[in-house]
Each structure stands twice: as structure tokens, then as C-alpha cells.
């Protein structure tokens, strides 16, 4: 079956999605913002244990870095401000997660970061992914809270919570990484056109792209009947793409989940008593 299906693909039959070029430049303001963030991280992680003034100075530097970043990034559409607020919340939460020494505070920072990035995903009209991420991560965070309350006494912090391993080195590596990413993203360049396989049965990718900047949305079900539903068209299209074009991937994801469940059960078992 597989061989036959693959032989039927004709390269001329593949739909092309045109690439677009990135206009942009890497401004020195952005560089300053990244470096300010790194310095703020170092000051905060030191100050949160040793010196309160350094902590406040670090927070102030972080705020200045955020303002600089807002000045540097191009913002043309009106929703950019809301998206920027979500991004600031996400980055601040992640920073608090990295800096905080109490495990419970760190878990709170993590929850803030993930929920705000879910807000960003909502604004990109990825409704299903945002909702699923929220459910999975909220569940994971609650479980983490449970674990933290179980394992770590809240009364006194342990040594391994307080002492970090070489924060200056990690901050340096991360700064280099962020600068590289920002540079390559903001530089001029072109995204190459991609091809989409449209030879599957009922393939969503075979439907023509609409002009108003929306992904193709199904208005008919698989038997050709007109559908009326309350599901947002983006989510319906995602579901249709999942079960036509990417069926194998979704089946594999299910398999991975099953295997991981079995593995977790095996790992969490109490070791059997050795009979003497």
C-alpha cells in the first residue's frame, strides 16, 4: 500500500507555498536590550540571596531592557501592543523562575511564563494548541506544586536550592545564543518556498489558499455535505489536517503517549523485595 501511495505522488502535483523575504535590520538598541537582560539576571540571582539593593537594581535594569526592546522591535499592526504585553509577562515570568530560590516561587514563575505564552499563541489564532498547552502545563504545574510540597520543606531552603552552578557562565552562553538568534532573525533574507503534498485523500492542503490571510477552512465535511458548527474554522481546519495530511504523525504521537505511560508506571514502582 505504502509503495503504491508513494509512487502516485507527482512532483508537478505539489502545491507551492510562496516564500517571503524578511526586511529588517539588527539594531544596536536590541543588542543593548539583550545585554541589559543578562546583566539584570546576574544581579538578580546574586541579590536575591545576598543583597536586596542589587536585586532592585537588577529589576530596574530588566525594566529598562524591556523598554528598549519595545523601542527596537517593529510594531505595525494594532494588536502588537497586546502581544508585546504578553511577551513581557512571559519573559518576566521565566526570569523570575530562573532567579527565585524558593521552589514554590519558581513554579509560580514558570506558570506565569507558560500561561502568557499561551496568550501569545491565542493571538496567533492557534486556538487548539493554546488550549491544549494550557491544560497540559497547568496540570503539570499543579503536580509540581504537589511534589514541591511533598519533597521540599518550606521552612528552610536546602543548599542545592540556594547555590547555583556558575550563573555567569550560563548567562554568557545564553546571551551569545540570543544575540545570534536575534541577528539572524532580524537580518534581511528570504524564506524559501515550500512544497506541500496534496495527493492524500481529502487533503486540506489541496484546497486553495484564501486571499484574506487565513488558512484554508473546510466548509464541507468529508462526504461533501455543507456543515454548520460552532467550532472555530481554524480549529476545524486543524482537525481536518490532523486526520488527513498528518494522520501518521498523530498515530505516532498516540503511540509515544502509550509507551510513556507504561514507562512511567514501571519506573515509579517500588523495587521488589529480594527474598533471602
Amino acid at each position, binding site marked *: 500500500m505504502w509503495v503504491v501511495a508513494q509512487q502516485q505522488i507527482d512532483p508537478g502535483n505539489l502545491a507551492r507555498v510562496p516564500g517571503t523575504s524578511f526586511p529588517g535590520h539588527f539594531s544596536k538598541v536590541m543588542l543593548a536590550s539583550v545585554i541589559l537582560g543578562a546583566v539584570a539576571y546576574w544581579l538578580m540571582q546574586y541579590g536575591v540571596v545576598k543583597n536586596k539593593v542589587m536585586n532592585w537594581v537588577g529589576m530596574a535594569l530588566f525594566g529598562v531592557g524591556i523598554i528598549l526592546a519595545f523601542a527596537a522591535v517593529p510594531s505595525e499592526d494594532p494588536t502588537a501592543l497586546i502581544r508585546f504585553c504578553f511577551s513581557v509577562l512571559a519573559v518576566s515570568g521565566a526570569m523570575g523562575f530562573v532567579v527565585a530560590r524558593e521552589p514554590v516561587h519558581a513554579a509560580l514563575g514558570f506558570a506565569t511564563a507558560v500561561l502568557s505564552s499561551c496568550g501569545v499563541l491565542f493571538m496567533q489564532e492557534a486556538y487548539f494548541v493554546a488550549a491544549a498547552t494550557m491544560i497540559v502545563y497547568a496540570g503539570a504545574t499543579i503536580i509540581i506544586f504537589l*511534589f514541591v510540597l511533598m519533597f521540599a520543606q518550606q521552612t528552610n531552603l536546602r543548599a542545592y536550592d540556594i547555590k547555583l552552578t556558575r550563573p555567569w557562565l550560563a548567562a554568557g552562553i545564553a546571551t551569545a545564543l540570543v544575540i545570534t538568534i536575534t541577528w539572524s532573525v532580524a537580518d534581511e533574507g528570504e524564506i524559501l518556498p515550500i512544497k506541500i503534498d496534496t495527493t492524500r485523500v481529502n487533503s486540506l492542503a489541496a484546497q486553495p489558499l484564501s486571499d484574506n490571510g*487565513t488558512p484554508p477552512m473546510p466548509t464541507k465535511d468529508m462526504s461533501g455535505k455543507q456543515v454548520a458548527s460552532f467550532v472555530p474554522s481554524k480549529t476545524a481546519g486543524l482537525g481536518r489536517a490532523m486526520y488527513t495530511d*498528518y494522520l501518521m504523525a498523530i498515530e505516532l504521537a498516540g503511540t509515544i503517549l502509550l509507551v510513556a505511560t507504561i514507562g512511567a508506571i514501571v519506573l515509579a514502582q517500588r523495587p521488589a523485595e529480594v527474598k533471602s
Partner: protein
Amino acid sequence: MNIANTQNLLILGGVLFSIGMVGFLTRRSMILLFLSLETMLAGVSINLIAFSRLHLNYQGQILAIMVLTVAACEAAIALALVVSLYRRKATLDVEAWDELSETLVPKEPEDAIPSVHGSVSEPVHEFPKLVPAGLDPLAKPVPSSLEGALETTVHSKSSRSTEATTRA
């Protein structure tokens, strides 16, 4: 319009990924290491969604769902591992499991015990001792010529089990 949007989101994803990496490199509590990994995965899925929006198709969202699946599996397995590791040593410190790393690599300078000459002390290797060939460790009686060899070489657990079988 979409290009600036995508650029900002890519930078946001990179920043989240890097902060997660900082957490992974610096933190020592196993639970927080796991949370750092999840932060990195959140940055990756923001990247994927941004490209999905740019190309106006669902490939990125499908990949984000795959990332989410892997994150969920990782959560299950990591928490099970943390439980079973905590049961052994009653600590969440990753450095308690230092012996799982390569033994030939010298320890980090801040942890090494300085010897008289100021050099890093080499770890002592202990190789497993084997039973003399052709002998069943549980079989009794042992030939008298090999009795002494067996006593010194057999692992303590198996010698205990031989005592148990002889008593029975």
C-alpha cells in the same frame, strides 16, 4: 504585517529558550531542571506557531502538537524518575548522582580535594571480581583446593545466598 509579527515571535521564542537553558545549566534541584526543559519547549512551540501563521498552513501547528505530546510524556517519565531517585537518596540534588557521569573525567576544580602536590586526585577504579572459571558458586561442596579463592572473590551477596542454600 505578518513579517514583523513573525520576527517578534521568533525573538520571543529564542529568549524563552535561552532563559530555559540558563535555568537548566544553573539549577540543581531535579524538579526545577525539569521545569526549565518545559520552558525551552514552550519557546520552541512559539517558533512553530509563528511559522505556521507565516506560511498560512497547519504544518507548524501539527508539529507544536507533537512537541506538546513529547512534553507530556517527558513530564510523566521525569516525575516517575524523580520519585524513584528521591526514594534512594532522599535528596533532590542532581550532584548526589554525580557517580553516574564519566569516572575518567577529573572532578571540577571547586570540588576536587587538593592533594599534597596540588594536582587533582585520580579516582580509584574498582573492577568486579569474578568467580573462578568452571565453578558454580551455589554448588556445594567446593573443592578444597579452591575454597580459599572462592571466599575472597565471590561477591558478598552471592556468598550470603550460598549460606542460605546450605542452611536449607
